[in-house]
């Protein structure tokens, strides 16, 4: 039984692997193609990010070579900051602060988040899907996919995928009342061209910057925890539960990761001394809401690209198990 299910899944994956994107008609198929393209397609382009009335532009280049990803994000306005990412490391160049910061990525090469056929049932419980019209974006034809949230605990998405490669060309995060909370849009893009080493190299000279870094290795999975998250909106499931040392040298941080198939909620628990006066309450940056509260001598922080109510409810449901 398990074998036949596995075979069926492999066949589905192989079909998606080899067929050109434009033959897909189902919105689910398009979601999978988008997910696959994000991990497999080389591209370089200008990404426009709009949020809360602010417009930011940046150059993004990604190359997949030998199964390994390299990526560069470079801000084109404001301070010339850039991020270089590889499979397991990330470098932040911040010339306006005269610094480079290095850290390990928490998701390893095997942990590329993708949508697989098994995820579709979970997605259907939480979202409705519609295929929209074709539209020209960044001088390419794109297919519109509407992902409609079934309740107010999460945002919906309107996605436009490149008709041929499946790469996402535009993503709108949409609230329940139809307001665009956040938007990413490629203004121009070259797909599956040759990405040179120079295009992935930082513009900033590291010689001129001071280097900061996190020497802690990759986080470890949590086998047992004295914490539990008792209140979750329908559809969210625990995807990861890790523990890592704080780069501040202030002890461990426990990290629960929940997903409804598209949106992700993180619950961070960090031990702290009493009366340090840490800020608590609600905050927002872009589409990200965060809520922090104190339980005893621990700080509980919930972060997600979800409405404010969602992070508040989840945070208030975090409990220290007595035992």
């Amino acid at each position: 039984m398990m074998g036949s299910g596995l075979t069926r899944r492999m066949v589905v994956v192989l079909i998606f692997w080899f067929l050109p994107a434009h033959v897909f008609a189902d919105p689910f198929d398009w979601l999978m193609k988008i997910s696959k393209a994000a991990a497999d397609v080389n591209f370089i382009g200008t990404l426009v990010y709009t949020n809360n009335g602010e417009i930011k532009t940046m150059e993004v280049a990604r190359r997949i070579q030998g199964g390994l990803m390299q990526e560069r994000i470079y801000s084109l306005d404001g301070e010339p900051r850039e991020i270089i990412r590889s499979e397991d490391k990330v470098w932040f160049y911040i010339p306006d602060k005269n610094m480079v910061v290095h850290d390990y990525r928490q998701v390893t090469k095997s942990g590329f988040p993708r949508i697989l056929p098994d995820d579709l049932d979970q997605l259907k419980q939480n979202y409705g899907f519609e295929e929209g019209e074709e539209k020209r974006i960044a001088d390419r034809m794109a297919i519109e996919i509407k992902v409609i949230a079934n309740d107010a605990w999460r945002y919906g998405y309107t996605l436009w995928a490149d008709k041929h490669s499946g790469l996402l060309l535009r993503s709108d995060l949409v609230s329940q009342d139809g307001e665009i909370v956040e938007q990413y849009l490629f203004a121009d893009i070259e797909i599956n061209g040759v990405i040179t080493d120079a295009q992935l190299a930082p513009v900033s000279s590291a010689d001129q910057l001071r280097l900061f870094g996190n020497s802690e290795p990759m986080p470890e999975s949590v086998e047992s925890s004295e914490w539990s998250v008792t209140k979750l909106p329908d559809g969210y499931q625990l995807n990861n539960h890790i523990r890592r040392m704080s780069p501040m040298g202030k002890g461990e941080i426990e990290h629960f990761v929940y997903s409804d198939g598209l949106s992700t909620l993180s619950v961070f628990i960090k031990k702290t001394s009493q009366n340090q006066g840490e800020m608590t309450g609600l905050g927002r940056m872009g589409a990200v809401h965060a809520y922090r509260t104190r339980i005893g001598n621990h700080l509980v922080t919930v972060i997600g690209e979800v409405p404010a109510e969602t992070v508040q409810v989840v945070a208030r449901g975090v409990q220290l198990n007595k035992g």
Partner: protein
Amino acid sequence: MNERISQLIDQELMPDQQVVVIDKMINHEPAGKTWQRYQLIGDIVRGEVDQVGADLTEKISARLQAEPTVIAPDRSARENRIAGPDAGIGIWKPVGLFAMAASLAVVAVVTLGPLNDSYQVGTVAAVDQAESGQVESRRSIMHAEGFHEMLTGHGEFTSSPAFNGLLAHVVLVSNQSPVQ
């Protein structure tokens, strides 16, 4: 007091008046104003308030150095954070991801003073907004120590099909500010 601070920033005070105002900023404001005054001090110390001259910055720095609870870090704790060497560039420092994150988002201005002393002011200058339910900007938890470390960690796990964790980094690179 606010008027005096404004005059200080605008360089409208005589040198002796500047010292008085600086001392008041450091020592005599009500506790509830802690966050704002340290933010301002941090802005000034780092020269992020354009109008302030170098001499005034030096004066404030000198006053702050006489206030170890305000800005001077715990050196033993700091040394514990020193990261190991890696391939090549520069000298490793103890600040770690927190400093990176704060810098990227340009939110925790106070936390990025002189780099070695970066996080201490933010730690001291916290304001409890427990259960307030208010989304605030300069006083929000987005300024809190360690928040951007968590934001980055969250972004790496995002299951959005869009860019495999890229979007969280885009927000950071774009110098996005917390919502006003």
